[in-house]
């Protein structure tokens, strides 16, 4: 545990030693503003909630989270620091957890910094703040799932660009499998049962109610499992490919 904390501190501060975290947070704030006001019509809807804001999160994360995750392992392998790290008395699991938690903390920070939106709706009306907090937590959890995929892809290759593209593709599959485009396309082809199964793998399906502030155990469980599985896959990939 002490090791995880030490590694976490190193990872977290390295986000801020380079412009990565700043650029990420800035773009995240700008895009979430643009999406909620211009495309989501946050004002014009005349409702005191943040639903349009949260509804865009899966699409925001789709491109932004892979950008945060891509360097996690690729950089270690490219620069050879992986050899240093893995000959220190720390386990791959500890390193993996620290990397995940550090990047997740940056994502959490970006989410926290959207608080002016929350102030705005509170100023304009009287929203249910419990719902909003729940939706924030749900969004952060989903961001963790995107992140776990991104970190796993980064463990597969030395090249950050390749890791970025792989992560977008895989995340895209996970987002899209629940979108109306895909589901409509398969309606009639697949039995309703298969269709439900397909949709149940999607981030969208599980985020839908979370965005409305309903935290259901199976949605939380789903994201936790996705995070666990992808981080574990990343762990195996690191073990396999560390020497290449």
């Amino acid at each position, binding site marked *: 545990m002490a090791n995880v904390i030490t590694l976490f501190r190193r990872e977290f501060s*390295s986000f801020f030693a380079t412009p990565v975290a700043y650029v990420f947070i800035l773009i995240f704030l700008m895009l979430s503003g643009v999406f909620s006001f211009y495309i989501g019509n946050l004002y014009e809807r005349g409702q005191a909630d943040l639903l349009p804001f949260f509804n865009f999160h899966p699409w925001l994360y789709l491109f932004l989270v892979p950008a945060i995750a891509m360097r996690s392992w690729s950089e270690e392998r490219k620069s050879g620091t992986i050899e240093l790290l893995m000959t220190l*008395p720390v386990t791959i699991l500890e390193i993996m957890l620290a990397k995940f938690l550090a990047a997740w903390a940056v994502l959490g920070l970006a989410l926290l910094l959207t608080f002016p939106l929350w102030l705005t709706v509170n100023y304009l009306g009287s929203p249910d703040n419990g719902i909003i907090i729940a939706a924030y937590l749900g969004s952060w959890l989903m961001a963790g799932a995107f992140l776990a995929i991104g970190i796993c892809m980064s463990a597969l290759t030395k090249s950050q660009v390749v890791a970025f593209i792989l992560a977008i593709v895989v995340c895209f599959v996970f987002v899209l499998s629940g979108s109306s485009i895909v589901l409509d396309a398969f309606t009639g082809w697949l039995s309703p049962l298969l269709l439900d199964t397909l949709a149940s793998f999607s981030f969208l399906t599980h985020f839908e109610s979370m965005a409305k502030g309903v935290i259901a155990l199976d949605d939380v469980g789903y994201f936790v499992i996705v995070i666990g599985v992808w981080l574990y896959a990343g762990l195996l990939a690191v073990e396999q490919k560390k020497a290449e």
Partner: protein
Amino acid sequence: MISVTNLSKAFGDFIAVDKLSFEVRAGDVVGFLGPNGAGKSTTMKMLTGFLTPSNGEIRISDMAMDKSSKAIQKQIGYLPEGAPAYGDMTVVEFLSFIADIRGLKGQHRKDRIREVIRLVQLEEVLRRPVENLSKGFKRRVGLAQAIIHDPDILILDEPTDGLDPNQKHQVRELIKNFSKDKIVIISTHILEEVTAVCNRAMIIAAGKMLFDASPADLQKKSRYYQAISLHFTQLTDISGLAELEGVEDMEVDRHNGRVTLFPEGQQDLMPAVSAYIRDRGLQVDTLYQEQGRLDDVFRQMTEEVSA
């Protein structure tokens, strides 16, 4: 103690390390030699638990590497080839990070960080990001990191590569002072370094062990071991030298007129040669006994394998 049995590593079809077996005891300072691609770094990566061997066993301090790698790694200080370090951290941040991971605490931690900074002379670059350092300074940071927890076993992959002559000297002194009851393994391409700091030399080529004994024994394998080298002030008839008792062969360098006399077996030719010079009243400006030329031995041994 390190004990290695039948250690092999294959990358696909390519065999980088081929059935190495050796033991290293406390107090040993091993110089690991071999041509490029011989498998030195690969062996060190296995000794430090980074690479998993394809075959064979590594035991360190009576623990098996495949079962207790973390416990073993606590006892090892390692400088990987190329001295990788986190570029975005400053030198002092990096060393503090390593100290934390090594579990150093409180005053002891502060003392150790200060001590390694002094030992490898990093004072002037403490606040600079590692990525902006020159090659030699990077190497020194890597060294500092390796010795910060005062390990029982020190494994250094080309520690003096890229260092200036003063720093080379400094690092050799550091290794010598370090090694009383510990284990040091260094790989190097500088053969004099082995005679200067090591009490054991291992030569590998194409993954196989070719030689494992003291540096003095390595010198004895040289044709030049105990050969007499001399140069006459004036042009002199030297044919008599070759006829001396115990001289096997004589060579004269055409360019500078230097004469080299090779002994039969391991005889000391010095008395006979000096008597010869004195008796005839010859004038010499240099006369000395050679220690053996390591690069000759190295070339001879390793070229046989690759040929």
